[in-house]
């Protein structure tokens, strides 16, 4: 098809270009087949009128055979086109082959149509028949369906057929001659060389004139049409993407509802046990403590869900305008978690690279949420007596903050789903470590929105190292905040 060599260069655009081209190819073929049905109906109508006006003269049988033959051939075209389209839709034929197949079908149809038109002319007046203008019509259609080179071939094919017919009648190779209007006196124009040459000349120049103008127009229209078809394909993709997003959101809502319901369900069940006297007196206090822990878990779930929802709702551009002192935020978060670590017997250490992280393009509250989750996880998954080391440095134009713990680590399977909301590793469940399942999703959301990076290294029993990097504000000095002396924080 005419647009094939000019399709989009690569990647998604190229794929979309092929899809658009396939769509256009089949739409045009369908339209061409419809036109042929209309033309055949017009032929039948014209013959009916002619039968009334030209009575008692009769048209030759061959004329009717050509029309019936063309009807049969059009049915074949319908079957070929729908079969090819079905194969492309079902993926049995790829789109490139689909476009090629449609092009072959279009070429075959034009060639057969021109031959059939010549036969119709031959049996209804030859060069005397003014319906030779239908050659122009076919050239115009060919210009819409085919490449310029192919249209030229068909133009020559049309002129060749017309010339052979005209000279055949002139030289009386093709006999007998069938008059255009049998009811009128026969002027025998097909036997007059001057008329025959004029007819061939006028038909040929008209065909090439039409060819020239159509190719000019089609080139412009095709460009717009291609863009439109690509836009339609893009729209369909967007619709599918929105639908998938809605499904993911619905799934997230269900999961979130389940996660929020879980501690509440446990609390209600525990209260039922107390109410029915199923808990021995000596264990009541322990159960109350569990209920308090589950309440705390529920509150944590809601808090994390709110933070996560805020990340999703806010405009990511807020990070671009931010100038946050990474070290100051890190210091504040470490101060907040130092008592928790101390209570658990975990040593919270800090270290720094040669260059202190300075101002970063991350919203301060988001950075604090991100770092808080990293420290929270590190302390939770490190048993008493272990270490959590927090460090920062500047690397490749980014502020890099690293949290390394000597805790339980995780398997590759857990690490693979680490950032998925509400996915918790079996290690955490077996070790009875509470968590909302949203912490690392929040970390990832902050990092992605601020155009940063996150990297996780972990192995079971060998601890976990999480490194987040955020873009530095260009040409800014190192942090003004005081990073605590090397050693244990909050000790």
């Amino acid at each position, binding site marked *: 098809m005419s647009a094939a060599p000019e399709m989009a260069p690569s990647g998604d655009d190229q794929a979309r270009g092929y899809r658009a081209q396939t769509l256009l190819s089949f739409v045009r073929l369908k339209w061409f087949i419809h036109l042929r049905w209309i033309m055949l109906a017009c032929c039948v109508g014209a013959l009916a009128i002619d039968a009334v006006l030209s009575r008692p003269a009769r048209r030759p049988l061959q004329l009717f055979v050509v029309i019936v033959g063309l009807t049969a051939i059009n049915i074949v075209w319908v079957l070929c086109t729908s079969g090819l389209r079905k194969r492309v839709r079902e993926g049995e034929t790829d789109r490139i082959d689909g476009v090629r197949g449609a092009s072959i079908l279009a070429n075959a149809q034009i060639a057969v149509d021109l031959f059939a038109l010549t036969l119709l002319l031959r049996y209804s007046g030859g060069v005397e028949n003014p319906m030779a203008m239908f050659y122009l019509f076919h050239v115009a259609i060919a210009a819409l369906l085919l490449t310029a080179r192919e249209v030229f071939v068909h133009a020559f094919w049309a002129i060749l057929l017309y010339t052979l017919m005209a000279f055949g009648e002139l030289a009386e190779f093709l006999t007998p001659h069938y008059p255009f209007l049998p009811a009128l006196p026969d002027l025998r124009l097909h036997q007059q060389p001057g008329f025959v040459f004029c007819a061939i000349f006028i038909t040929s120049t008209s065909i090439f004139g039409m060819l020239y103008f159509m190719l000019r127009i089609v080139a412009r229209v095709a460009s717009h049409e291609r863009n439109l078809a690509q836009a339609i394909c893009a729209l369909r993709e967007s619709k599918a993407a929105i639908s998938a997003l809605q499904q993911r959101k619905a799934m997230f809502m*269900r999961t979130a509802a389940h996660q929020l319901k*879980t501690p509440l369900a446990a609390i209600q069940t525990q209260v039922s046990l107390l109410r*029915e006297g199923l808990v021995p007196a000596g264990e009541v206090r322990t159960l109350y403590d569990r209920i308090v822990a589950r309440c705390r878990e529920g509150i944590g779930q809601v808090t994390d869900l709110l933070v996560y929802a805020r990340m999703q709702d806010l405009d990511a551009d807020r990070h671009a305008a931010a100038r946050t002192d990474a070290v100051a935020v890190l210091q504040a978060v470490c101060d907040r978690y130092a008592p928790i670590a101390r209570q658990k017997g975990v040593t919270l250490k800090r270290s720094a690279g040669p260059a202190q992280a300075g101002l970063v393009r991350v919203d301060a509250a988001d950075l604090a949420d991100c770092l808080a989750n990293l420290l929270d996880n590190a302390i939770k998954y490190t048993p008493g007596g272990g270490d959590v080391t927090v460090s920062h440095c500047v690397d490749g134009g980014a502020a890099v903050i690293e949290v390394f713990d000597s805790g339980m680590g995780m398997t590759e399977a857990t690490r693979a789903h680490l950032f998925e909301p509400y996915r918790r590793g079996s290690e955490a469940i077996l070790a009875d470590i509470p968590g909302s399942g949203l912490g690392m999703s929040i970390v990832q959301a902050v990092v992605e929105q601020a155009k940063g990076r996150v990297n996780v290294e972990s192995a079971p029993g060998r601890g976990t190292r999480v490194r987040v990097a955020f873009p530095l504000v260009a040409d800014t000095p190192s942090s003004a905040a005081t990073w605590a002396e090397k050693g244990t924080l909050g000790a």
Partner: protein
Amino acid sequence: MATPKTILLIDDDRDIHDAVRRVLEPEGYRIESALTGPAGLDAARRIRPDLILLDVMLTEPSEGFHLAYEMKRDDALSEIPIVFLSAIAERTGMNFAAEQGSDYLPAEGFIDKPFDPAGLRESVRRAFSAVHK
């Protein structure tokens, strides 16, 4: 004295294990526990319980369903009745049937969390009586 019926509880919530134990052990059942899907499958193969109480959302969403299908495909376990025990009620919009594209839910019962002790006892009793009809 009759051997007590064994119930295997597969759930990632320790408080639910504690509650189920407190409710069902006085009824004469023996409770075995597993906190994850793989551990639950191992336990089921090892102890061949008389009933499995199975949470739907374990380490992964819908893991309970997959586990139930796996057990029903296992000749050694397929006869053991399974009762889902989950906070995923129909109210949350989870469509169980959609999991396999049919109306087949590979379980003999469903208990919605939170459960009350009487409701749990009744559901377990009903599951056993359905199997032994």
